[in-house]
């Protein structure tokens, strides 16, 4: 397990190195002055710029400049947003939790809905339920997410009037920003309308989560189906059959757990895809997350914000990726001690 952890740490370090290099080089690639792109100080006087140039070691070589950029990052300094003139780090801290909330709930929903359905399809391999599930899955990951979001609003918010169409919570509730995760903040708050606010926030969460989760869920369906089919072909299942266990006993006791482990391995890879979908969904549902903020930053040519957002969002995805790797390793001894497997 130590080697496993060390290896992940190593990977994380390398990834961060590459990401920061990428983000640093963006400040050169974006139109305009590099130092201004990096710091976001568009209204700075020449004197202020000189101070900044000194701070970021602008006269030195690229490597030194890069290191001073990274040291600023380490101190939580990502410069100032060109549009709002607030520190990018503050802006991100205000918005990232909303995205974390949306994506993690969506990921869980996608897994808990997609994987069982996939297993179900595998059990009825090449029978009607399997074909129906495959057909639905095909449509599910072919639907353009922005269109799906609009249709969902039309049906569930307007025709049926069940669920709200925009935002994270009704503006009437004043919830103090503690963790930024709305549901947790509500539980922490001492508002007299706590329970009401909690219900309201959950209602706001449902539609965006369904829209974000649909495509990943269909992918998990297919992954789970394939995994289950592979497991059902293995020798230990045949052995279990020979022992005289019933089909459902085999599925529950042996097949499900092993197939599940196989699916978990790929969940991390799907997370980047899920975040992409979430970015567009945030725009449609006016979700106050980092994806919507990043897209607005493009409209406003807020290059400092784009750099900061890119780093933070990619790091977030990568951390989730690593967490899922650890979950996989915890579930599967073969992964953490390769010599048993190979």
């Amino acid at each position, binding site marked *: 397990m130590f080697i496993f952890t060390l290896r992940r740490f190593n990977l994380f370090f390398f990834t961060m190195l590459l990401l920061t290099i990428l983000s640093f080089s963006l400040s050169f690639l974006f139109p305009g002055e590099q130092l201004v792109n990096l710091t976001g100080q568009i209204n700075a006087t020449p004197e202020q710029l000189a101070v900044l140039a000194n701070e970021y070691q602008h006269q030195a070589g690229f490597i030194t400049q890069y290191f001073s950029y990274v040291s600023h990052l380490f101190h939580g300094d990502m410069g100032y947003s060109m549009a*709002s003139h607030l520190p990018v780090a503050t802006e991100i801290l205000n918005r990232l939790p909303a995205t974390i909330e949306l994506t993690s709930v969506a990921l869980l929903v996608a897994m*808990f809905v997609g994987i*069982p359905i996939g297993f179900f399809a595998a059990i009825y391999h090449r029978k009607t339920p399997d074909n129906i599930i495959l057909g639905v899955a095909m449509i599910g990951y072919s639907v353009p997410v922005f269109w799906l979001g609009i249709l969902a*609003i039309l049906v569930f*918010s*307007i025709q049926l*009037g*069940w*669920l*709200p*169409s*925009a*935002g994270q919570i*009704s*503006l*009437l*509730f*004043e919830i103090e920003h503690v963790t930024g995760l709305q549901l947790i903040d509500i539980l922490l708050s001492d508002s007299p*309308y706590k*329970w*009401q606010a909690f*219900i309201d926030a*959950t*209602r706001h969460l*449902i539609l965006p989560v369904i829209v974000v989760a649909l495509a990943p869920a269909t992918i998990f369906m297919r992954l789970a189906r394939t995994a289950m089919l592979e497991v059902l072909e293995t020798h230990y299942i045949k052995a279990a059959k020979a022992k005289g266990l019933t089909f459902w006993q085999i599925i529950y006791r042996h097949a499900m757990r092993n197939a599940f482990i196989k699916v978990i391995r790929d969940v991390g890879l799907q997370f980047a895809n899920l975040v992409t979908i979430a970015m567009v969904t945030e725009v449609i549902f*006016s979700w*106050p997350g980092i994806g919507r903020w990043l897209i607005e930053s493009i409209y406003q040519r807020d290059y400092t914000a784009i750099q900061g957002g890119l780093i933070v969002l990619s790091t977030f995805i990568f951390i989730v990726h690593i967490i899922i790797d650890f979950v996989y390793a915890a579930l599967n001894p073969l992964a953490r001690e390769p010599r048993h497997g190979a």
Partner: protein
Amino acid sequence: MSYSKFSYFLSLIVFSTLFGCDTNETLLLSEKSIIYCSEGAPESFNPQLVTSGTTIDATSNQLYNRLIEFDPNDNSIIPAIAKSWHVTRDGKMVTFYLRKDVNFHQTAYFIPTRALNADDVLFSFNRMLDPENEYHEVSGGKYPFFQNAQLDDLIESVEKINDHTVRFKLSQPDSSFLANIGGNSAVILSKEYSEHLIELNAMQEIDMFPIGTGPFKFKQYSSGAFIRFEPHSKYWQEQSQLKQLVYDITPRDTGRLTKLLAGECDVIAYPIAHEKIKQHPGLALESVTSFNVGYFGFNTTKPPFDNPLVRKAISYAINKQAILETVYTGQADIANGLIPSSSWAYDDTIESQEYSISKAQSLLAQAGYPDGFVMDLWAMPVQRAYNPDAVTMAKLIQADLQKISIKVDIVSDYEWSTFLRKISEGEHQSVLLGWSADHPDPDNFFSTLLSCVSSVTGSNRTFWCNQDFDQLIQSALQTDNINSRKALYSKALKLINEEVPLIPIAHSKRYQARAHSVNGKLLRSIGGIDFNGVTKN
């Protein structure tokens, strides 16, 4: 958690959220609060600094009061902070007697120790008028409404007579002065708060964390997202029944309508798809004719438009009804004269110019152009309430004038500021423009658009300078008898219809949609929206 337990839990959440909204608690909060979906973020919380409608909507009537205000029904001047006022016989001195029970907002960032008095009024006006005032330069030092109305020239001084009496000395009599003092931008700020901020060395906060006397006080502003107001518990008039007033800033037209249909907003600004709202049983659509005019103006210094006959001929050839339907999609009234029907100076005996091709042709022949001519028509390149689509309007006019053999070249490629500069230099032959009034006094239309003075310095883009007309509007300003003013303006309107320096096309309406649960008058023809006295059930 096992799978079945999880699904049980999940369905529990789904059911409780879908049907849980009927609990008594919900009734408490949303029943007593209004969410207004506005079309944009305010630029400032001080309407002295900005004239944009969005900022006025968010601040003027909610946070502040003026010395005098306009009656929402007939736009006549009524007392507000000043319980009465007196104008001297020569019209050069105006004295206001202030109420003694007007309290400023008590908020998390400021606790007032005294009620409003003459010092506050002096501070509010001197901030704009007096370059020496320490707040004059805070937030840019530009006070567009006051400077546009030339009040800085008109007002010689503001004096404190005693704690509750102030006197304005004017350089000349001006009967639109009172209307200007009741305008959206002439709000009263707190002198005590300004001193408090000087102590804290945070002077710019006066326009970001506002303190006023209005029915609502500022609670929270999340930049570009929402504004939260609370009722002012010591408001000098009847206190609002609402618990909260929230402006949900929703720039997308479809987004606002979606929120209204989904019940997330109670009131929305500038709705689209009017038919859809009218068909909806729970929603109401309302409108008010705004104090604006969209017009087709001629450069009266350039031939052939220096000839009134040509201008008159063209006025017969314009099909205003078609323009109203296509350009304004019916959301406007046809302009019979320069001023809208909601103004007291409106004269319903003046009828809209009739549409008659034959009359147009004969007038044109009389003027010496039986075979027509070629003209250019400048169409403004931006959308405004008074003219939502000038280019389409220009195309319709082009087709109309084709019928009397006038060929029209449309000019609309310039960027807005360049466009304005070029027409102020008189490069155009004719132009499609408009005007939104700052206050309901009719003078705001006449003097601004057609007086000789404004053809030199102001916004008279027809460069029409008629001594009779100027005489009429000058005398109207020098009397404060409303009937004689009305008679003078009526003559002026007739003169415009004879001379046709411009053809008024339409007065557009401002629309708004609300849920039936919201009661009370919201829209005003001047000064935007007002939530004072609005209730919800």
